[in-house]
């Protein structure tokens, strides 16, 4: 049982990162009702950005966030206007295959420019370890968790208390009613997409020192994010946080007791079970999956 504190600490750190990836996805999913299959590729691109900033101009990835966030907003806006907006009112097939197409393009662009080699961002202080209550946490893990937690908290406050946040929640609940209340839902969709992209960009920058980067890295994490989003409930930011922690615990503790080879099966089985038994998720609106629009 000596391993337990360590497992819990690892799970919480991982959960914080998963939460940030998933909140981005759930915002886009909840407000736009579009599953962004390219979300994982956004993550992959920002991981490459962190490596690029660090190796080419020697910028620390955490300071690089100040460059990455504006870049992600520009990128998000470009993707929104060129790729996403024209398909918002179209059938599901069109939406699904548009974002899948985008994911294929970005994945192979990465393969083209940076090859399939695994890259690892190493920081000078990357090996520093802090021991907290019997659990060892590396410096990049600690920073990643702190920044992710800060971002999540700010986002929650923003969604809860600001006018724009309320408008966004209203649009997620009922776009028609929101429009009738005078909310510019077109603008809200853009903002949701931008905030979602920004979240995943921050997550990518934080993850670059922790995980290897390669062109298909996004797929692995986006599948986790889908699990989290569906588990937590469509469009629910709190749900995403709870879901992220649950999945992270399954990931770490399942990895320890069942073996890393099989832990993925564990959370996919949970995912399928949730979809089949309570498709609205733990904290989602009931029936959202049946409306499907």
């Amino acid at each position: 049982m000596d391993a337990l504190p360590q497992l819990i600490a690892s799970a919480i750190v991982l959960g914080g990162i998963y939460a940030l990836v998933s909140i981005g996805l759930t915002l886009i999913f909840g407000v736009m009702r579009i599953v962004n299959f390219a979300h994982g590729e956004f993550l992959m691109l920002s991981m490459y950005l962190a490596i690029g900033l660090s190796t080419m101009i020697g910028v620390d990835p955490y300071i690089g966030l100040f460059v990455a966030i504006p870049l992600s907003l520009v990128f998000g806006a470009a993707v929104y206007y060129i790729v996403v907006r024209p398909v918002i009112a179209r059938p599901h097939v069109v939406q699904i295959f548009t974002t899948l197409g985008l994911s294929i393009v970005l994945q192979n662009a990465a393969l083209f420019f940076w090859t399939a080699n695994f890259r690892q961002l190493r920081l000078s202080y990357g090996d520093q370890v802090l021991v907290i209550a019997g659990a060892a946490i590396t410096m990049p893990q600690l920073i990643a968790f702190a920044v992710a937690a800060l971002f999540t908290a700010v986002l929650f406050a923003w969604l809860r208390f600001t006018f724009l946040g309320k408008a966004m929640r209203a649009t997620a609940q009922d776009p028609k009613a929101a429009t009738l209340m005078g909310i510019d839902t077109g603008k809200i969709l853009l903002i949701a997409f931008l905030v979602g992209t920004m979240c995943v960009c921050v997550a990518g920058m934080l993850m670059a020192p922790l995980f290897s980067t390669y062109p298909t890295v996004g797929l692995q994490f986006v599948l986790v994010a889908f699990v989290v989003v569906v588990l937590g409930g469509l469009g629910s930011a709190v749900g995403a946080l709870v879901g992220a922690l649950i999945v992270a615990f399954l990931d770490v503790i399942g990895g320890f007791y069942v073996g890393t080879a099989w832990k993925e099966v564990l959370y996919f089985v949970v995912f399928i079970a949730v979809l089949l038994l309570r498709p609205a998720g733990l904290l989602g609106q009931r029936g959202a999956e049946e409306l499907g629009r």
Partner: protein
Amino acid sequence: MQIRQILGSRSVPEHFVVATLFGIALCVALFSDNLFLQDAIILTLMWAGLASAWNIAGGLAGQISLGHAAFFGLGAYTSTLIKIHLGWSPWIGMLCGGVLVVVVSGFIAFAATRLRGPYFALLTLAFAAVVQIIAARWYSFTRGNEGLAIAFQPGLGNFIFTDKLSWTIVIIVFVLVLYSIGVWNARSRFGFQLAGMREDEDAAQAIGIDTRMLKVATIAVSAFFTALGGTFYAQYVGFLDPGYVLSVDLSVKFALMCIIGGLGTPSGPILGAILITALEMYLRAKWGGARSGLYLMVYGVLLILIVRLMPEGLVRGIPKWLKGRRRARAA
């Protein structure tokens, strides 16, 4: 004028085009000694069959699946493992795989009947991911990522032929059966019920259509033929690995061919398969060697453009476009 008529009017010319394609394939297999061309035709027909099988669930019933690679892989693995462990003929293995997949997909469809749109796609995606992980990690049974090789022992009973003509005939029969299902569907009571469900599920239920039964039936049939295609792939190519036969990319490929050709049309998936296979070969030959990734980038851009500009597919889109131009010229 001729082509315009063929594309513009309904079914009979469509049958004519499909029959001509089969004729060309047979002629090449019979009279040509260009092995590359024969191989390309067999593979194209295989993709045409698989896209047509996807079309039954995705096009006719409107159930967008991103997990058909699981059915494909289960079919391929079942027949291959049965051959290796029990020594039974792959023909029997193919039927076993088909039955297995009918049970599995029927269960999924039955349980998922409430899920619509993207939720169903996510469910099937997750299911395929589970199957892929199991096949990759259960080393003692599936040889994991090393893959399985099918011993080359030619013979009708072993489902391995030395001449391309036999392969061509087998795969033509496969595509023909699926094409017939599509044609039959377009004019049957069953097909009209499916169309009703696809357009408005609530309205269909309200007039007494058992949508759950329809979904289970279409998905099971679609999965069954996908599994048969999987066995054909295993026998023809002679090698299986979970990284390819169970990948998301493969599921997307089935769907993509079908969407480009025309969702829900009998000849659309065949046309889509021809276009995509030809495009893949061309792009790979042109740019594949220099830097990998480029050809798939082009492929992705085309996917985005085609679903946006011609979501009804080429089979319906082109005649509509021609008609529109003719009308514009007349005005």
